[in-house]
């Protein structure tokens, strides 16, 4: 009995002692990304980008950064309940991440109850503009910016300008929005569209043969796709099998992931798209960032990772600037903040809480020698200025 008592005392002393060692109470940031399901790869890249920012920044308000990562499974209700867990159980003072617009909107609708600022690094819906004083976007280009980028890009590229485009999207909110915007803008700029009511494919589609047959039967020479990034190479591969790329060029509303491009190989050449960045961007900042990323995570640096990195840096810097964890103060600090990173200055507009930055038009093609062992590169064709993409402030 006595021995047991002594052991318990010793144990509790150790526990208390170790607690005392962790005198620095860390700042907890809740990271909500999809880690399972079809966009798991994108979620992992987002997480790694945020992780890299945390490793670089090291401390906020003098306290170490602790990232708490939860899997949203791309389900809005799961994401909200994980967010509640992060905030109420684990004590997170801000939420970052989120891939899908549906999840993002669900979180935004609950943000008053959650009581913390939320910065998404990937949600593309235009509903996020000025949605809520605590909701921000800094990362992936929004649907309207992408549409402008793609349309301007098509007009500026001789091989794309005169084609007729068949529009095929994934059947969910983002796909519909991306498709509709592109068609509306394209028609204004006299780009030929084959089907005004774009075709919708279920997100679980794996056999694209009937869609490909339909595209072939339409006799077009261009395809505009709005698919979840990880599915783009799947479609491209099957289209390649049917020989579509011999006559058609593909323009994509979302940048394909580099890992998938690698697996797709030759079938993934000739895909155009507007995106924040590609590792082909040649600037000292970008190259240094790519090198560090590759050394740490051992994969080809991706768009998802870099814009999550930038978004995270902006959030961390804003908390420092606010000097407190109070959501209103952080929100105030976020408005107008900017960060100079791999793709230039990324500024969060004080008007609508969303980012403005330069972007690039890329085409996928065979890569020349590079430090990442990549066989496919998204070659930068043209740079867009932030105010070209809008929206106006």
């Amino acid at each position: 009995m006595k021995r047991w008592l002594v052991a318990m005392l010793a144990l509790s002393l150790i526990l208390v002692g170790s607690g005392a060692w962790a005198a620095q109470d860390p700042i907890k940031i809740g990271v909500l990304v999809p880690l399972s399901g079809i966009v798991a790869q994108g979620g992992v890249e987002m997480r790694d980008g945020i992780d890299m920012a945390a490793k670089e920044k090291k401390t906020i308000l003098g306290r170490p950064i602790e990232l708490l990562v939860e899997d949203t499974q791309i389900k809005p209700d799961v994401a909200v309940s994980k967010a509640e867990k992060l905030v109420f159980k684990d004590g997170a003072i801000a939420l970052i991440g989120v891939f899908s617009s549906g999840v993002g909107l669900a979180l935004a609708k609950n943000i008053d109850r959650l009581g913390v600022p939320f910065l998404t690094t990937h949600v593309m819906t235009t509903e996020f503009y000025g949605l809520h004083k605590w909701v921000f976007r800094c990362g992936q280009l929004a649907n309207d910016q992408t549409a402008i980028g793609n349309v301007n890009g098509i007009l500026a590229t001789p091989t794309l300008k005169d084609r007729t485009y068949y529009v095929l999207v994934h059947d969910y909110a983002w796909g519909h929005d991306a498709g509709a915007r592109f068609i509306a803008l394209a028609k204004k700029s006299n780009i030929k569209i084959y089907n005004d009511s774009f075709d919708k494919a279920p997100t679980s589609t794996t056999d694209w043969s009937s869609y490909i047959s339909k595209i072939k039967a339409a006799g077009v020479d261009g395809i505009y796709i709005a698919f979840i990034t990880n599915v783009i190479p799947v479609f491209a591969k099957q289209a390649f099998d049917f020989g579509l790329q011999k006559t058609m060029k593909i323009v994509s509303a979302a940048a394909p992931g580099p890992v998938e491009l690698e697996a797709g190989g030759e079938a993934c050449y000739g895909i155009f798209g507007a995106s924040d960045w590609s590792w082909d961007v040649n600037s000292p900042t970008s190259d240094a960032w790519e090198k560090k990323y590759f050394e740490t995570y051992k994969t080809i640096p991706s768009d998802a990772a870099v814009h999550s990195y930038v978004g995270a840096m902006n959030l961390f810097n804003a908390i420092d600037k606010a000097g407190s964890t109070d959501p209103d103060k952080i929100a105030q600090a976020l408005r107008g903040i900017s960060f100079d990173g791999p793709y230039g200055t990324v500024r969060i507009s004080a008007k609508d809480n969303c980012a403005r930055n330069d972007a690039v038009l890329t085409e996928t093609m065979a890569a020349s020698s590079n430090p990442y062992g990549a066989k496919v590169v998204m070659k930068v064709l043209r740079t867009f200025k932030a105010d070209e993409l809008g929206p106006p402030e």
Partner: protein
Amino acid sequence: MMMENPASVLASEWPERVESTPADHPVGTKRLLTGCVFLLILGVLAAFPFMVPNRFYIRLVNEMMIYGLLAMSLDVLLGYTGLLTFMHNAYLGLGAYLAGLFLIHVSPSSLWLAFLAGILCTSLIALPVGWVQVRTGGLAFALLTLAFGMMFFTIAWKWYAMTGGDDGLMGVPHPDITLFGWVLGSSGRPLEMYLFTLFIVSVCFLLTWRIMHSPFGAVLEAIRENEERAAFIGINVRRYKLMGWMFACILASISGVLFILFRGYIGPTTMTAFSGAVILMMVLLGGMGSLWGPMIGAGIFIYLQDYISTKTEHWELFLGLVVILLVVFMPRGVAGLTEFLRRPERESR
């Protein structure tokens, strides 16, 4: 031998069920004891949100109660009537969608009308489906539930204009909880919603307990044990199966309305075949045929899922392992364990 009587596939092998023959029905002191246990648990649950005022935990237990109700309703079907369904969650989904649509489009502030709308409309759908389904039994019945369930799921997923498609029904208003005109609280606030859920679930539990331990329940059990014999003694098997089905679906739709009030959101993912199998597992975990067992099963499962998914991104692996171990080593579920305690003299068949 193979499939001549589909119903017998399930009926012939029920030894693992928790026994609930008329001999077990509590009489006298036993009834008092059971009643006390029930009140004790009720008391603990009611005191819980005050003892642990953390919003996350309150909502976690709230979710457990809602799924507990759904699991119990499945037990009515599976444990008592002997009908296996792959997609009972479809009726939670229907209840939630219909009540949600009512709250959004018709009247954002009437709680009880939303309940009525959810239950009534789901029943209107469950009736013809059930009528078709009870003409079969066993595995054929189960596959039919899969077919109809997948159909409902696909409609919820595709009918974008009405249901919001893949994104689901968002921003459903949270009406106030009223009783005879007195406003008791808002379904939007965790504490009040929790107590309201506890109230509704307890009432449903008591009701179901009473009904299942009545002649009606006995008939259902007779059908489960041997459909042919039940028919021979004059029971209209189809009608009773249908009644059991409707009762279970109504309970499920109640859990659906609670769900939409609780979450303010419903999406098609709640109506997939995989979610359906989860509910089955809850019933198994808790113990078929006990009514309260599945509720515990729901609680354990939700906790496990939450716990495991935080610890590792490979939570699927561990979840699968847990399920396998449970089925192999604990097929009678939690309720089966307690049965051992209550009746040590009874031999297992």
